[in-house]
C-alpha cells in the first residue's frame, strides 16, 4: 500500500472518523430486521450505498439522461461530460498514469474475462501456463480455466499455508518461460488475506510476465496505487465500493491495452465501419462496445468521491481496529474457530463452529438482525484446502461499529444456545 503525502491543509483537526455521523449517510442501515436493529456484516458480498450515490443516479435520470459520445444536444453533452468525469476520478482514485487506462466494465468478473479473452487469447498458446493462487475467487479461476481449455494451456496454482497466506517461494517456483500471465487476488474474500502484490509483481516482471490483480475486496479497504504496485491489470467492482451494481473498472497499462484486440464489437468501439473494414476506436473506447451503463458509472463516481472525502487511509484504520476487536472477541468464544489468520489481513472474519453448520449459524444470526454470509463464498478450492464445506463470514464495512461486533458475539452465543 502506498501512503499519499498530505499537504498541511489536508490534515484535519476534527475527529478523524466519526462512524456514527457516517452511518447517517446510509439510509438502509436504519431499519429493523426481525424486530432487531440491522447489523450488516456482509460487506464482502456487497456494500450499502450512501445517499450521495443513490441521489447521483436518481438525479442523472431526472435531469441529464441521454446517450453519450453521440448527440450534439445539451443533454447528451451533459451525460457525456458526467460519464467522462468519472473516468478521470477513477484514474485519480487508482493513481493510473492516464484516464485512457480506465475501462468501464460490468464488474470484476467481466474485467478478468476481458483480459483472459483478449490478452490471454492473443498471448497464451498450447503448452503455456497461467499462474493463480489457491485463495482465488471463482471469478479469478474460471476465466483462466476457459482460456487454458481452449488453448491447451495449463493452469498452475500456488499453494497457501494453514493461516491462509500465499507461499511466496512456491509461487516463484511456478514462474517460468511458459508462464504467460499471473492472476492474483489483492485481498482474499474468503480469508481476508492481503497478498504481497508488489513482491509478486516484482517476481513476475523479472521474467517479463504480466500480472492481473483482482482488487474487488481491496479497493474499498485500502489506498490502491496501480503505479506503485506496478501491476499490469487491476480489476474492481463498483458495488463493493459503496457504488451501484453492474459497473466496475478494468485498469490496464496503456502499452498492453494498445496491443490487445477488442473484446466485444459494436457501437462506440469503432472509429469507422464499412463492410470491407472496420477501424477500431482509440483507448479506452476500443473496449467499451455499445451504450454503456451510464447511470451507474455516474453512481460509481459519487461513490469514489464519497470514499475519497472520507479518506481510504482512515477507512483502512477504522476497519483494522474493528477487525482486531472482532478477531479477539469472536476468537475467544469456546467452540468457534477462525478460518484465515494471516498476519496481513483486512475486512474479513471467516469462522466455523463445532458441530454447527454455517447455514444454521446464518439463519439464527439473521433472526437477531445480523446479516452474514454463509457458504463457500465462491471460493470452493479454499474450502477444500481447509477441509470444510463452508464457513460463516462476517465482513466489515466503513460504517460498522464495535457495538455491532458485540451484537455478533451475542448472536454467536445465541446460535450455541438454540442448537444446544
Amino acid at each position, binding site marked *: 500500500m502506498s501512503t499519499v503525502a498530505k499537504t498541511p491543509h489536508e490534515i484535519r483537526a476534527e475527529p478523524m472518523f466519526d462512524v456514527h455521523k457516517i452511518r447517517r449517510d446510509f439510509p438502509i442501515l436504519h431499519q429493523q430486521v426481525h424486530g432487531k436493529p440491522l447489523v450488516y456484516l456482509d460487506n464482502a458480498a456487497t456494500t450499502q450505498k450512501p445517499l450521495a450515490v443513490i441521489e447521483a443516479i436518481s438525479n442523472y435520470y431526472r435531469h441529464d439522461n441521454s446517450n453519450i459520445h453521440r448527440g450534439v444536444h445539451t443533454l447528451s453533452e451533459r451525460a457525456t461530460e458526467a460519464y467522462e468525469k468519472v473516468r478521470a476520478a477513477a484514474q485519480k482514485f487508482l493513481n493510473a498514469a492516464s484516464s485512457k487506462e480506465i475501462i468501464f466494465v460490468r464488474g470484476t468478473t467481466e474485467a478478468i474475462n476481458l483480459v483472459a479473452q483478449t490478452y490471454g487469447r492473443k498471448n497464451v498458446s498450447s503448452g503455456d501456463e497461467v499462474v493463480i493462487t489457491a485463495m482465488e475467487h471463482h471469478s479469478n479461476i474460471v476465466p483462466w480455466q476457459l482460456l487454458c481449455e481452449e488453448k491447451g494451456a495449463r493452469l498452475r496454482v500456488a499453494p497457501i499455508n494453514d493461516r491462509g497466506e500465499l507461499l511466496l517461494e512456491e509461487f516463484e517456483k511456478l514462474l517460468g518461460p511458459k508462464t504467460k500471465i499471473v492472476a492474483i487476488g489483492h485481498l482474499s474474500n474468503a480469508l481476508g488475506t492481503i497478498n504481497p502484490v508488489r513482491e509478486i509483481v516484482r517476481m513476475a516482471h523479472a521474467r517479463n510476465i504480466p500480472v492481473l490483480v483482482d482488487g474487488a475486496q481491496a479497493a474499498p479497504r485500502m489506498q490502491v496505487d496501480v503505479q506503485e504496485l506496478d501491476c499490469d491489470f487491476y480489476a474492481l467492482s463498483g458495488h463493493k465500493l459503496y457504488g451501484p451494481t453492474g459497473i466496475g473498472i478494468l485498469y490496464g497499462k496503456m502499452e498492453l491495452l494498445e496491443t490487445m484486440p477488442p473484446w466485444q464489437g459494436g457501437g462506440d468501439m469503432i472509429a469507422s465501419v464499412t463492410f470491407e473494414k472496420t477501424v477500431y476506436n482509440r483507448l479506452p473506447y476500443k473496449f467499451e462496445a455499445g451504450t454503456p451503463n451510464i447511470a451507474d458509472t455516474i453512481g460509481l463516481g459519487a461513490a469514489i468521491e464519497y470514499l475519497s472525502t472520507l479518506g481510504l487511509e482512515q477507512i483502512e484504520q477504522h476497519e483494522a481496529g474493528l477487525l482486531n476487536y472482532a478477531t479477539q472477541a469472536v476468537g475467544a468464544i469456546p467452540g468457534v474457530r477462525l478460518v484465515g489468520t494471516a498476519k496481513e489481513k483486512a475486512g474479513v472474519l471467516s469462522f466455523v463452529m463445532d458441530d454447527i453448520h454455517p447455514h444454521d449459524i446464518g439463519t439464527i444470526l439473521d433472526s437477531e438482525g445480523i446479516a452474514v454470509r454463509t457458504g463457500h463464498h465462491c471460493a470452493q478450492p479454499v474450502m477444500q484446502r481447509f477441509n470444510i*464445506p463452508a464457513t460463516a463470514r462476517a465482513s466489515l464495512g466503513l460504517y460498522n461499529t464495535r457495538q455491532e461486533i458485540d451484537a455478533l458475539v451475542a448472536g454467536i452465543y445465541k446460535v450455541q444456545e438454540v442448537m444446544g
Partner: protein
Amino acid sequence: MSELRELYQEVILEHSKKPRNYRVLETANHKAEGFNPLCGDHFTVYLDVKDGAISDIGFQGSGCAISKASASMMTQTLKGKTTGEAEGIFSKFHDLVTGQAAGSGEDLGKLAVFAGVSEFPLRVKCATLAWHALRAALYGEEQAISTE
C-alpha cells in the same frame, strides 16, 4: 424467536446430531447424490428396492441441521413404503415446507415438525435436498442432482 424455535425443534436437532440410517447400504440397487452448491450440502441416498417397495434405505453426507434431520427422518418414514407411497409422501412434505399444505401436516406423522421451514423460504432447499436425491435414485438419474 418463536419462529426460530419452530424451525429448530428438539426432534430436528436430535436427528441432526444422531441421524438414523446413516450408512452406506451395501445391498443398494439405487443410489443418487444431492448437492446444494450454494451452501455445500451434499448427501448420497441409497435404496434397496424390491417388488416396488423400499425394503431398506440409508444415506450419508454433510449438511446443515435441517437437511440432515430431514434426510434422517425421510429414511425412517420411507422404509417399507412402496415407491408410489414415497412419491405421495414427498409431494405432501414439499407442500408442507413450502407453505402450500392445507393443514399443518398431521397426515405426515413425525415429518410434521418441518412445518416451521415454510417461514424460512431460503431453507426449503435444505429440507428437500435428500428427497430430491431420493427421487433421482428411484428414477435412475445417475448424475448428482443439484438444487441450482
